[in-house]
């Protein structure tokens, strides 16, 4: 394992991208970052710019308005980075499956940008903060 990946696992800074979520997953993400769950123990920190981020927390189905922005944000993120798809919508468009406003599942769009992207799925509607932390731990320990 290279030192780059090792140190990435020690301090994943996250950036929150909403591509058309109902705000439920976003509230749970903010919940995960509260002192109660204390994710700073693992070095996880919320940053304000994709340029600083190591992990993108993507919520929502990927609407036609939001998808170009998602591509832009993914291109702006400095690599290596991990993409976390939080919630049922982001994992596979959920109940909005054939909606007129859906531009495709988020993982497909990320793969179009970068075929080798590391994508992690955390299902749930919304997933609990514990589920998200467990997803982060599993993903990072399998890198």
């Amino acid at each position, binding site marked *: 394992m*290279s*030192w*780059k990946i090792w*140190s*990435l696992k*020690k*301090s994943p800074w996250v950036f929150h991208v909403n591509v058309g979520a109902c705000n439920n997953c976003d509230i749970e993400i903010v919940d995960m970052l509260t*002192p109660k769950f*204390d994710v*700073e*123990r693992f*070095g996880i920190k919320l*940053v*304000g*710019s994709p*340029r*600083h981020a*190591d992990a993108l927390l993507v919520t929502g189905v990927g609407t036609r308005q939001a998808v170009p922005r998602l591509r832009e944000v993914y291109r*702006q993120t*400095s*690599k*290596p980075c991990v993409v976390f798809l939080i919630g049922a919508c982001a994992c596979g468009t959920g109940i909005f499956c054939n909606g007129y406003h859906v531009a495709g599942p988020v993982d497909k769009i990320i793969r179009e940008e970068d075929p080798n992207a590391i994508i992690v799925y955390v299902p749930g509607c919304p997933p609990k903060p514990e589920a998200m932390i467990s997803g982060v731990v599993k993903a990072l320990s399998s890198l």
Partner: protein
Amino acid sequence: MGAVFEARQRKGQEMTQALLSIFWILIFPGFVFTVVVGLLASWVVRKVSAKVQYRVGPPVLQPFYDVMKLMGKETLIPEDAHRIVFMGAPLVGFAGVLLLSTMLWRISISQTTFVGDIIVAIYLLVLPSLALILGSSASASPHAAVGTSREMKLVMSYELPLVLALVVVIVKTSGNLSLANVAQDTTVFSISNLLAFSVALLCIQAKLGFVPFDIPEAETELGSGVLIEYSGALLAVWKLMQAMMLVALPLFLVMVFLGGFGPSLLAGIGKYVLILVLAILIKNTNPRVRIDQAMRFFWFYCGIALLAAIILAITGKYCDITWL
């Protein structure tokens, strides 16, 4: 023969002197030592903040992991950015803080001082903020532009009180301009000194970008403002610079207001930790102010306090009352 031998010997001495200076700047009181102490200090900042919020907080090596990770990441440079200024600004700021911390450590450990080093220190203290302004305005981002304008206003706000606070100390030590002598001669427990110290502590808070005055970085509205376009190794240089400022600025306050590293090394470290913890507690118990509020605070309230302090110091000096 003798002359040649002497010339060679003198050359050898010059070489040793040069090597010793490089050692001072790069290893012992300079780069390596200050970076390690600074990263540990930034761990203390995060750990104490965590304790204030009833959390566990990050492990001791967390700042080291952060910097190591940033070094390993891709460095992106925005298309519209001015490349040379964008990449040079972090190095300029870093070099300034490196010089400042080497100078302060050398003065506090081995009493190497010269007349006017307090003025050199004032100039070197401005360099990081100046580099931040340069780098963020070269990054061609609207968020960074707002951050830059706020940083400029903040620099204008806190520089005046900081220099006035130093004037108080210089008056008290009868026009002394060398840091080691100021540290020896100043009376710590006097009204004017404590007033000047508390104002200077707030200026340091603004210089470090800690919460009541983190207006240019403003995570919530500007998305880390001035640093928004930096990534990878360049961001790591900024983080290292901020960590080193966490050493240099409290050390400067210890030298100027609290009597330096006397009577013992342990007392000096105690004073340093005291200033650090005070700054962290101010950081954790205050909300962010607006830029106009910060300006009014520094110019109006701190200005009045310092005017009183200067008058007290002059009166004390003139009438020979040490506690004024």
